[in-house]
């Protein structure tokens, strides 16, 4: 997100060449799409790490909510 913010402010300044602008714009758009994808994962994951016979085991944790 910080990288994205940097790109936005660079573009807004407008002192880049056209080639640079297009390049950085493409990068910014990719980043924004990547972030959107990441945050739109609707499924939350809640797991619990426990030890059994000296080995760590990851199980789904069901909290009674």
């Amino acid at each position: 997100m910080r990288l994205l913010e940097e790109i936005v402010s660079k573009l807004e300044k407008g002192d880049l060449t056209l080639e640079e602008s297009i390049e950085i714009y493409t990068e910014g758009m990719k980043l924004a799409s990547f972030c959107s994808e990441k945050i739109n994962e609707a499924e939350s994951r809640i797991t619990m790490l426990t030890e059994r016979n000296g080995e760590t085991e990851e199980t789904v944790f069901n909290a009674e909510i």
Partner: protein
Amino acid sequence: MTVITVSQLNRYVAALFDSDRNLSNISVSGEISSLKRYQSGHIYFNLKDNECSVSCVMFRSKAVLSGVLAEDGLKVIATGRASLYDRDGKFQLYINEIKSDGKGDLYAAFEELKRKLEKEGLFDASKKRKIPYLPRKIGVASSPSGAVIRDIINVLTRRFPGFDLQLIPVKVQGDGAADSIIKALKIFNNRKEADVIIIARGGGSMEDLWCFNDERLARAIAVSEIPVISAIGHETDFTICDFAADLRAPTPSAAAELAVPNRTDITELLFSSKNSMNLSLTRKLEYSKLRLQNILVSSIISKPEIIWKERKELISNHTDRITSSVERKLNDFKKRLDLATGALESLNPVKVIRRGYAIVRNNNSGKQMNSIADALVGDKLTIKLFDGNIICTTDSTEINTGVNDSRSC
């Protein structure tokens, strides 16, 4: 029986207390509770043990000296006098001084450990790791049952659906609690999956929360490579853990809020970022287009012949100037030549000789003669006429006496 007023009764009893030497200067041990500090500077609290409780007041003049330490749950030895507050008929201790009850005192141990670790620099702000803006995985060390983990999950679900939480169940009270939390920290750090760790426990007494004042736990938190948020007890509870952690949350719910951003905020931010980028690029393109257009309409590009037309004119101009200047020079020269030729013609000695003049040369000296002085008697002379020469000898010379020219050979 004599009837008396309430005032009389209360004052009588107060006087009884005041006359008792034992009560005029006593030290009482107990635990402070319901402490209230007033604007005036006076402190009111109850001193209690397992069974009984007594009201206490510490006036400002005394409170500034030793009252600063006073805190709920603190075990103290309070020194002062016991009497009756006649207005309310309330029995209370008027305290001059309080001292921490040294033996096994949790508070003193807490203060000592805090001072020690602080001196070591364990709590330095420079050592605090930054809590990530958006953790991929959140590690939680807490009890798997009870309200705490539920509160955390609730807040995370509300703020950022799509979160990833990994819980390591730990003991949060009593023997072995600190050890189990230290172990959880190690597991999280070994697995390197979580970007942030929350250590959480609900409210409780100072004794209940005591495991969070463990020195080894504080050190384990300090060396954790993953940033740690501590959320122990209520807002008013402070533990060593809180000081060692990278961020202290007042409650477990607050810890969850601090661990993830609000997803709506991010969505909005992403949206506005995209908009801004589009706008910036469009503006850049428009600007570039305009610049290109300006270049294209400029006269040089649209009418390139301008360049050579100008040059051509210049060249022909130069050529003309060179030609005319050479011509002028030639004419000058020709005129001068004609003039010279004319002059030369008129001076041609042959022409003069034809008209009857002669050129006389002295053969002895070899010189052309202009005067009689150029010839001596006997000198041989050559007289050059237009059709030939006469060779003769000088007999004599005569100097002209008149204006008339006379020649003799």
